[in-house]
């Protein structure tokens, strides 16, 4: 039974940020989290598309843009946060490793932090755009072509990355014996 994890399982674990052994229980729980996320995403996309259609018919250009950007934030951050809570709720962050693997796990945590930072960035930038555009401080062309002021978005996503990786660092336990 002692088989190596397949590439697919390792990729799924990396995406969800699950530190432990990818056995059948972990994979089935991840599938459950993924299915729930997909259903929520599909329903949200459906209803937000209908909303976009009606807004495009009668709304102003500014309203449509804010609506689309808000949907972008809801989809990216919503799904990412749902995954975080789902993985935590299913106790998939509880991992136990020999103390000798602490350095390897620290490297893994750092990679997870950078991944979260990158994944949360677009949503953060869109949120920043909504706030500024709604207040009339930003134009669409500046947002699309110049990518102005990404520093605040980088800070927001940095905070989200830290919040994401924090539980992982705390929940991994190390033991002396092998």
């Amino acid at each position, binding site marked *: 039974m*002692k088989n190596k994890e397949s590439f697919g399982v390792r990729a799924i674990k990396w995406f969800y940020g699950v530190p432990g052994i990818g*056995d059948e*229980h*972990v994979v089935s729980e991840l599938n459950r989290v993924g299915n729930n996320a997909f259903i929520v995403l599909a329903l949200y996309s459906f209803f937000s598309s209908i909303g976009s259609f009606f807004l495009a018919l009668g709304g102003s250009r500014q309203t449509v843009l804010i609506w689309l950007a808000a949907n972008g934030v809801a989809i990216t951050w919503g799904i990412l946060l749902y995954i975080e809570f789902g993985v935590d709720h299913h106790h998939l962050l509880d*991992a136990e490793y020999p103390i000798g693997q602490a350095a390897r796990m620290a490297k893994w945590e750092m990679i997870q932090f950078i991944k979260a930072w990158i994944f949360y960035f677009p949503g953060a930038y869109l949120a920043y755009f909504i706030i500024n555009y709604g207040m009339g401080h930003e134009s669409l062309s500046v947002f699309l072509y110049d990518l102005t002021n990404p520093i605040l978005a980088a800070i927001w996503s940095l905070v989200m990355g830290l919040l994401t990786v924090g539980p992982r660092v705390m929940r991994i336990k190390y033991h002396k014996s092998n």
Partner: protein
Amino acid sequence: MNRVREYRKKQKLSQFSLAEKIGVARQTINLIENDKYNPSLNLCISIAKKLGTDLNTLFWEVEDDEK
């Protein structure tokens, strides 16, 4: 309730060492012992082999009226 815990203790194995031998997480063994997770047939066979017993002994639940 299955008898994995009982047979594991008979073999003087910890949850961790049994998990390591069959290539799963310790938490998975804990969940199986507490009837909170239904393992696949392959995993059941692996556990039975490592504990030196068979599937019936480990997992077959005898109801009172069957006795």
